[in-house]
């Protein structure tokens, strides 16, 4: 059996099997996985990370596939992380994103990894950032992360990606939906996908009026694509390049990376605290006792939470 250091050496030498095994260890958040991540972290940071998010059925996988093909045409090597939901009942998952990216499988410069959310909210899997770090250290030019079908509030991807692309489709709500806080606000690029459907132009205009009213210095571009017809993909790749140039300016990238690092450290610390608490009280029965009192309305949830962490 190899040591984790052997695998790290293999990854850095370009061995895909070593990369893949390390991704599993990182995803499972094992002690050796953490050791690998610690060794790889300083070797990462050169890949451009693209986050692609949007609601279920908005065409993210198809669009990701089309975008990946375009980036390959432009000579970029690619890591793709595709996330699908874990069942809250069985903790199992069906990961089906490879189906729409079949042809990319035979390209040796593309490495596609599917991940399940494993109970994480926010649109990503708990170890997505670590998996991205490993693909980055492996030497991929671009790492494309496709979130689980996201609603309005799954904004975690923006804290991890250099460029966040939000995908919307016509016929999914009026312009007040678009004005709501959350997912619309994290977009560096807004994409109206399935632009062959009626009302795509209307939606693009509504989005434009909202973007114009935004106080940000950089205007969020709005693009129309039809992933399944391979339309508008060129322009999307161009817009991603432009955003990359924008954040490469002195000051912008540093601020962005600081923000990302802060978010990552806090998210991990939060998770550690929760794990520690649960490990403690799942066994001593204190959590169960509190939950029962809350369910019986003897105790309110806030007081119960206070008691749990006291």
């Amino acid at each position: 059996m190899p040591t984790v250091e052997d695998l790290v050496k293999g990854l850095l030498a370009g061995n895909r099997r070593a990369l893949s095994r390390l991704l599993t260890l990182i995803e499972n958040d094992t002690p050796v996985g953490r050791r690998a991540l610690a060794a790889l972290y300083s070797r990462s940071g050169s890949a451009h990370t693209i986050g692609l998010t949007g609601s279920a059925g908005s065409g993210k996988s198809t669009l990701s596939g089309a975008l990946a093909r375009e980036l390959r045409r432009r000579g970029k090597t690619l890591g793709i992380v595709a996330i699908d939901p874990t069942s809250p009942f069985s903790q199992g998952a069906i990961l089906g994103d490879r189906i729409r990216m079949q042809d990319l499988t035979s390209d040796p410069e593309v490495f596609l990894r599917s991940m399940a959310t494993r109970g994480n909210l926010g649109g990503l899997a708990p170890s997505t950032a670590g998996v991205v770090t490993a693909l980055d250290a492996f030497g991929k030019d671009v790492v494309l992360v496709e979130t689980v079908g996201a609603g309005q509030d799954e904004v975690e991807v923006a804290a991890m990606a250099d460029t966040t692309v939000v995908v919307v489709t016509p016929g999914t709500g009026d312009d007040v939906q678009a004005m709501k806080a959350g997912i619309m606000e994290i977009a560096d690029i807004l994409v109206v996908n399935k632009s062959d459907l009626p009302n795509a132009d209307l939606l693009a205009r509504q989005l434009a009026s909202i973007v114009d009213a935004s106080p940000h210095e950089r205007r969020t571009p709005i693009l129309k694509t039809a992933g399944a017809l391979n339309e508008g993909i060129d322009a999307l790749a161009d817009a991603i390049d432009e955003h990359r140039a924008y954040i490469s300016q002195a000051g912008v990238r540093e601020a962005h990376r600081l923000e990302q690092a802060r978010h990552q450290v806090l998210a991990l610390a939060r998770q550690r605290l929760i794990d520690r608490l649960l490990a403690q009280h799942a066994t001593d029965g204190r959590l169960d006792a509190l939950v029962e009192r809350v369910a019986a309305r003897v105790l309110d949830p806030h007081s119960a939470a206070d008691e749990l962490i006291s």
Partner: protein
Amino acid sequence: MTDEKIRVLIAKPGLDGHDRGAKVVARALRDAGMEVIYTGIRQTPEMIAEAALQEDVDVIGLSILSGAHMELFPRVVKALRDREIAPDEVLLFAGGIIPDADIEPLKKTGFQAIFGPGTSTEDIIKFVREWAATRPARAT
């Protein structure tokens, strides 16, 4: 979360388009708490091995109804070996229409079980779990 999830690849090599059985098995393994990568129909042996490599699966289940298993299955094993995945590192099983006479030769190539029509999904789950309980760690 440090639990070791069982990751399974379910794939259909060759040209038959009937994926009902493969989907039933994929769904059953999901409901048993496993993470199932489903690649769909019309997979070449190379695509299957490549998916197994990139997804680092513990288990590969192939479904075939076309009768081409004696041709395609050994090619899957070879494509795995080409990627440094030895047959004893993954649990390889198959299902579909496979005559009894072919079962022994397939087992010699590295398939650990062949599940014919009428197999209960419970048996498949049990088989996978028992194998997973003995699998070695990926690294120390």
